[in-house]
């Protein structure tokens, strides 16, 4: 009876426990009783069984064995009686085996028998055995005698047969004699023969042979009768009467025959008769004992005696066997009575056991019924209690279910929100995470964080600084800044600003932003991957630069080529510069040229190098120069094909010039004059240089967000190549004008000027010289302040020299466009090297005009020379 698991919950279960305990005690008591009863019964049965096994069974077996022995011996007796020959009797063997078995059985019986019984049984059995032995011996004797008798009889019979044959032979011979006598009588008819036939010996002999034959036949029958006698009386009678008579008659007949034979006349027959007589004697000798050999009759006698012995032995044996059997029966009855007593006792035990067990079972059943009733009652109480408990449990689980549903709903909401947050985070593509004051990451983080910093996130003790910065110094500065974020000493934004914002890792560039976290004591870190933007920007810039370069090249091949050569020359100058001043000049010119033609990478590098020189006052190192050269070569490499393809293969002729030629030819002008005109065509039109300057000006203006209207007045002037070094340097003037001269549109409007500034290039050719003018309507040059900045060393110097003074710039701020007097100085030095002069006229707020006066080489002469 299993208790439900509520046994600690009420008085019902306690009742039940007590009930069960009492019931099991009762049951155990019953079982103990049953066990005791069983042991008692088994003990009693075991005793009976051992009595059976030790006494009854062996005794019964021994009695059976004795019976077997007796029956064996009886069977031997019967077999001996039934045997028809000595061999069969001998084949029975001796009775030792049966006797041994009987002895063994007797030993076994010894314990079970009363002493008198044992002795008498033993004696009886021995007597029985003896009589059985006697019987066997008698049987053997009887058969032996019988056999001897049969042999003797057979011998006698064959002797008789022999006798008869002999007599038959005699008969035949006598008959033949008789027939021969008849034949003699028949043939001779003599009376003598007749007398011999009637009275003679032959007839007598014939009769006596016949008589002997008859007697011998009778003897044979009598001898056969000996075997048929049934008892000694018959035998005695036969022997004394018929047999003796027959023997005597046979003897008499033979003697009678013998007497009839005349030895003379019947010699052959006499011999035969004597033979027959001897055989008869021999035959008769077989009948009765002569000496030690028993005769036929004696054997028959012995046979009868042996038979009688056998029968008496058989009778004795039977009697003794019956007696032994009777004793055995007694013993058997004793044993049976013991067995029956034991059986009765066993039955009594069984009966008692049956009643006892029945009582116990009834008691047990009653107890079970009682127990069942008690348990049922306890169960009923328990069930009621359980029902109550189940109701309580249901209520509780209902409440729980409600609560669970709420929690579940809430969890669902939260996880949905979390999922959307995560989705948001992940879809941003930025690395977003929160970290606490120790720099340890807390809460959610976007997928990008794992993608970018996954390897460091997993490391033990990984902090924000280790995560963000790959190298130790970087990490230290982040860590310092991070600590400031939390010590509350500085405002958050200020502290955040001081932490490094850009990191480069694994070829990626990350931009990092620090914001106040959602919780106190956490900081939200937003990391963006700028790599792609930077690369794209760079690529675009390069592409733009390349386009600009190609555009410049196509627009103004000559100018481009000049600038290129100039730049190459300047780089060489830089490499060979002997002092810082030369270096500065060359560097600045290079910067201006490269910037104006769109080699922005080179220009940028030049600017950077200028910064370095300005800051540290040290000339660029050889490796820096090498880097500059590499940059340059890289820049122009892409343009080589454009340059090479059309280099020196053409000259530019204006349509007006062609018209002019035509006009000259139609007016039939002097051939010299025509020649001079055409010769000038080999020179480059100034317009191409000027328009190049114009473009550069526009570009510089747009870069500075200034509006400018550039005008070019070239006057169809062609210039020869002697001025080639000049043109690139004019960029300085352009840039000075755009950068320093022209104001921003707002300033111009404020000063009452048009928004768009003006810049004019013009070239004029006289007989001896060529005049190049660059003029703007900008702010002009504040000569006084220039001189003030320059200090005492400007005293006495003309304006031109003041501007061109090294390092001077009218602008406070250094820009990549200009700002230094270096540019002006460079122009000045080129012009002077060409043997020209420079003049500057300026008015503050009105503008500046720079005029370059250059001596003109005779174009005709030079051209002619060139033509030759």
């Amino acid at each position: 009876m299993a208790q439900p698991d509520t046994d600690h919950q009420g008085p019902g279960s306690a009742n039940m426990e007590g009930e069960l305990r009492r019931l099991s005690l009762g049951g155990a008591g019953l079982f103990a009783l049953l066990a005791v009863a069983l042991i008692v019964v088994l003990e009693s049965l075991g005793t009976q069984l051992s009595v059976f096994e030790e006494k009854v069974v062996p005794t019964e077996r021994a009695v059976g064995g004795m019976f077997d022995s007796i029956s064996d011996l009886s069977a031997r007796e019967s077999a001996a009686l039934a045997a028809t020959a000595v061999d069969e009797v001998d084949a029975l063997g001796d009775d030792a085996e049966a006797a041994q078995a009987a002895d063994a059985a007797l030993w076994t019986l010894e314990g079970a028998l009363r002493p008198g019984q044992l002795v008498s049984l033993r004696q009886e059995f021995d007597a029985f055995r003896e009589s059985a032995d006697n019987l066997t011996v008698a049987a053997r004797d009887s058969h032996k005698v019988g056999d001897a008798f049969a042999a003797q009889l057979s011998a006698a019979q064959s002797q008789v047969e022999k006798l008869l044959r002999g007599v038959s032979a005699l008969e035949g011979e006598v008959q033949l004699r008789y027939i021969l006598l008849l034949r003699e009588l028949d043939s001779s008819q003599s009376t003598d023969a007749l007398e011999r036939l009637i009275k003679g010996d032959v007839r007598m002999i014939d009769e006596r042979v016949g008589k002997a034959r008859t007697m011998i036949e009778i003897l044979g029958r009598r001898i056969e009768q000996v075997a048929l006698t049934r008892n000694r009386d018959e035998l005695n009678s036969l022997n004394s009467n018929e047999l003796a008579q027959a023997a005597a008659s046979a003897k008499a007949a033979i003697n009678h025959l013998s007497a009839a034979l005349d030895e003379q006349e019947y010699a052959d027959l006499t011999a035969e008769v004597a033979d027959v007589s001897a055989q008869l004697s021999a035959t008769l000798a077989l009948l009765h004992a002569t000496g030690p050999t028993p005769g036929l009759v004696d054997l028959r006698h012995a046979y009868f005696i042996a038979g009688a012995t056998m029968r008496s032995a058989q009778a004795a044996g039977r009697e003794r066997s019956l007696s032994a059997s009777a004793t055995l029966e007694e013993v058997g009855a004793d044993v049976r009575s013991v067995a029956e007593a034991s059986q009765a006792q066993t039955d009594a035990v069984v009966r008692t056991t049956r009643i006892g067990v029945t009582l116990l079972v009834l008691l047990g059943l009653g107890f079970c019924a009682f127990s069942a009733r008690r348990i049922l009652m306890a169960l009923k109480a328990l069930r009621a209690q359980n029902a109550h408990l189940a109701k309580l449990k249901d209520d509780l689980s209902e409440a729980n279910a409600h609560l669970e549903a709420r929690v579940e709903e809430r969890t669902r909401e939260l996880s949905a929100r979390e999922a959307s947050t995560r989705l948001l985070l992940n879809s941003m593509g930025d690395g977003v995470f929160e970290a606490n004051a120790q720099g340890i990451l807390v809460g959610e983080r976007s997928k990008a964080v794992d993608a970018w910093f996954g390897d460091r996130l997993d490391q033990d003790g990984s902090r924000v600084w280790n995560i963000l910065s790959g190298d130790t110094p970087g990490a230290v500065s982040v860590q310092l800044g991070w600590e400031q974020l939390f010590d509350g000493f500085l405002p958050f934004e200020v502290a955040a600003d001081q932490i490094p914002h850009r990191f480069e890792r694994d070829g990626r560039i990350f931009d990092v932003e620090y914001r106040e976290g959602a919780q106190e004591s956490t900081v939200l870190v937003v990391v963006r991957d700028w790599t792609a933007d930077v690369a794209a920007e760079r690529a675009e810039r390069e592409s733009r630069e390349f386009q600009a370069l190609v555009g410049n090249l196509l627009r103004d091949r000559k100018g481009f080529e000049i600038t290129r050569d100039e730049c190459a020359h300047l780089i060489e100058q830089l490499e060979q510069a002997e002092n810082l001043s030369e270096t500065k000049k060359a560097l600045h010119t290079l910067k201006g040229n490269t910037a104006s033609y769109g080699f922005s990478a080179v220009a940028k590098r030049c600017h950077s190098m200028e910064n370095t020189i300005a800051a540290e006052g040290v000339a660029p190192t050889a490796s820096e120069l090498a880097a500059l050269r590499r940059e340059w070569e890289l820049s122009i490499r892409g343009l080589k094909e454009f340059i090479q393809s059309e280099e020196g293969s053409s000259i530019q002729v204006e349509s007006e010039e062609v018209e002019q030629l035509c006009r000259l030819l139609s007016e039939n002008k002097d051939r010299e004059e025509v020649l001079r005109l055409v010769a000038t065509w080999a020179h480059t039109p100034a317009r191409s240089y000027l328009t190049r300057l114009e473009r550069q000006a526009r570009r510089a203006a747009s870069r500075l967000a200034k509006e400018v209207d550039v005008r070019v007045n070239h006057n169809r002037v062609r210039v020869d190549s002697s001025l080639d070094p000049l043109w690139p340097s004019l960029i300085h003037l352009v840039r000075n004008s755009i950068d320093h001269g022209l104001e921003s549109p707002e300033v111009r409007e404020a000063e009452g000027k048009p928004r768009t500034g003006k810049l004019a290039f013009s070239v004029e050719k006289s007989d001896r010289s060529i005049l190049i003018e660059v003029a703007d309507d900008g702010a002009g040059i504040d000569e006084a302040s220039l001189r003030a900045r320059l200090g005492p060393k400007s005293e006495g110097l003309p304006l031109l020299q003041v501007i061109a003074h090294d390092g001077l710039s009218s602008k406070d701020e250094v820009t990549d466009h200009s700002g230094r007097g270096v540019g002006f100085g460079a122009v000045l030095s080129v012009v002077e090297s060409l043997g020209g002069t420079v003049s500057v006229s300026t008015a503050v707020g009105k503008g500046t005009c720079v005029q370059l006066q250059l001596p003109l080489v005779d174009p005709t002469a030079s051209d002619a020379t060139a033509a030759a």
Partner: protein
Amino acid sequence: MPQLLPFAGLLLLSQASLAPATPQESDSLRIGMSTALTGPAAALGQGVKSGAEAYFAEVNAAGGIRGRFLELIVLDDGYEPARTGPNMRALVGDHDVFAVIGNVGTPTAAVAVPIAQELEVPLFGAFTGAGLLRKTPPDRWIVNYRASYAQETAAMVKGLVHDLGLKPSQVAFFTQDDAYGMAGYTGGIKALKAMGYEAAEFLPHGRYPRNTVQVESGLAAIMDPRNDVKAVIMVGAYKPCAQFIRLARKHGLDALFLNVSFVGSAALAKDLGPVGEGVVVTQVVPHFESDFAGVQDYRQLIPEDHRGFVSLEGYLLARAFVAGLHGVRGDLTRDALIDTLEAGLPIDLGLGAPSQLSSADHQLSDSVWPTVIQSDGSYGAIEDWSDLRAYLEVH
């Protein structure tokens, strides 16, 4: 030269044993014979045995029967029926013989015949003319070569009455007092009755006990002066018969003495000596000096001093048996042999027309050849019974 012939046969045998198709000794075809090698009938047994062996040796020298040697196993029964039974069973059981041939004697046949029938073994060419081997219909397993005693005595009666011109009443019988004697006697009586002489049973008839020479009583019956006996048909063994003839002649019986073949011609002639001249013996084989092809073949095998009617019969019955074996188609079994013979297989023994058997006739030869002891003691063939008149008139 003729003496060497058996050895020539042996030589052939040894050569054959070198030939590729050598019959295997272990696989020989065994043939049995229970006969008298000792005792009063020893001469007969020896004769039959030698004739059969000579012929088997020739067959073996020619390759045997279906590649198997013929092996003749001979057991001696001494003319005693009591020994014949065990011999027959030993031959069939222990020696596993295919058939038994050439057994000598009627009383022994009385035992052998039921055994042959029981064991289903062919008993072929027994040296006896007794009727118990010649039942109607014949026993399946009994096959005879020779004519019966009845046929012999019938031939005698015919010859005496028809050819020699005697009256049936002048014929007497002297027989052994057993089945043998009775067989011959009955044949003669039947023949006489067939001639219309109804009183044949009352003709003088002398008997003598078997294995004795007590012939006087029989002689007395025949010599009764009331009879006019001119011919005595004798069915007996040679000793009593010789004794009878001697006594009869001594006491002046002037008659022809006619013996059946079984008497043992040579022994009889020898026993009688000079008294024997004119004694007739009928034979169931031709004279061994005759010109029959089969007899010439016989003479090729048997040396001159071993020749005789008995060994010739042994030769011929062996030859007939082998012819039967050769005639079998398919598996060589006992049944197949009997079936083949009963189907009328022609068996040519070189004695004129081939013989044929059927299920109603199990006897190959019905021929009877009369012979007479000549003055030199040898046997001469009688071409015509009337030739015997000379002997009648002499006495």
